[in-house]
């Protein structure tokens, strides 16, 4: 039995004893005891209510913490998935970019890329006061190959020549399929004499190519027009100059290079 209970039992016993009933302090003690019991009861109630508040608050903060952790986990997951989608898109973009600048048949850069590249290089030489070499080459009598051996053979010739041209260039030279059987070359920081030397080498390599078409070797040749694009030149003029030189190469017998 607890002290409090023992104390209460003792007082109750005193108050109940018949010999104390007429004692002058009996009524005072009875009143005091009653008030004491009310106070204790009140105190217990307050404590009980306060405990309940506390446990509610505790519960609330626990569920908030749980919710916070769940949200955080979801957020991390969203970010991770979103990043992966973005990586996927970036890769698709790169593939599309690669497809948009390449010629499907030859694998060389296409005209669109070359135009971009020409204007970039032109801006560069303008700023630096330097120049670059430019060459247009064309497969001689290509129409005849198509007519005699069919378009598949024509495509094969284009692909073989493209491969040969591309393989003979320096890393920083750019070669593109400019039109049907026309190729355009850009030689950075190269004057027309050096560009001529490169094109002569390419011309010789193509002449030695002799690919097998329908089982028999076919002699091929290219003609080229070469020019130098200088700081003050307009791209359009340089292209026209190279084109004109190509025209001259064709008209003076083909299988040759002309510098303009």
């Amino acid at each position, binding site marked *: 039995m607890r002290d409090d209970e023992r104390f209460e039992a003792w007082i109750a016993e005193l108050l109940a004893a018949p010999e104390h009933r007429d004692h002058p302090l009996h009524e005072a003690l009875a009143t005091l005891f009653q008030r004491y019991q009310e106070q204790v009861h009140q105190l217990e109630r307050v404590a009980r209510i306060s405990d309940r508040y506390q446990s509610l608050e505790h519960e609330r903060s626990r569920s908030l913490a749980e919710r916070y952790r769940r949200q955080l*986990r979801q957020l991390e*997951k969203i970010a991770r*998935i979103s990043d992966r*989608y973005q990586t*996927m*898109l970036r890769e698709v973009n790169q593939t599309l970019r690669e497809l948009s600048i390449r010629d499907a048949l030859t694998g060389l850069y296409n005209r669109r890329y070359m135009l971009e590249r020409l204007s970039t290089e032109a801006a560069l030489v303008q700023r630096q006061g330097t120049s670059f070499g430019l060459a247009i080459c064309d497969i001689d009598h290509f129409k005849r190959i198509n007519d005699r051996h069919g378009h598949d053979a024509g495509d094969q010739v284009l692909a073989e020549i493209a491969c040969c041209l591309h393989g003979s260039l320096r890393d920083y030279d750019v070669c593109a399929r400019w039109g049907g059987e026309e190729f355009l070359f850009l030689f950075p920081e190269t004057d027309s004499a050096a560009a001529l030397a490169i094109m002569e080498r390419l011309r010789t390599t193509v002449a030695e190519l002799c690919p097998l078409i329908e089982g028999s070797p076919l002699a091929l040749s290219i003609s080229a027009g070469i020019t130098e694009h200088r700081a003050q030149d307009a791209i359009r003029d340089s292209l026209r100059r190279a084109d004109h030189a190509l025209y001259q190469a064709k008209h003076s017998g083909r299988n040759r290079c002309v510098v303009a």
Partner: protein
Amino acid sequence: MIDLNIAGTSSSPAIVSRWAEGTLEMRGDSYPENSFELYQPVFDWVKRYLETVERPLTLNLYLLYLNTSSIKSLMDILDLLEQAHGEGRPVAVNWYYDQDNERVAELAEEFKEDCSFPFAIIGYSPC
């Protein structure tokens, strides 16, 4: 409950719900201007279905690209399914992907990670 029949656009998926069959299908890319506006009715439909009927619910997904807010919306819907599954309801997801695009399957795996209900990732051959 009225079924959903939302036509797809180039930036939002086609969404079709069938209350009687207990299926919800979403098909296409999802990067709408306002994902929450698009997916709120879908969320509500799923919630309502799960609260109203005892029959199974199956989500058939043919989703390709999802932007960030669409990912969030879809995860909220999957959370509803997870909760229902916890209460013993038969729910399932079938995520279909073109076999030529294995990436979509990898992303579906990410969504599947926290789900304990049946979640199938099914490749199909493009025709």
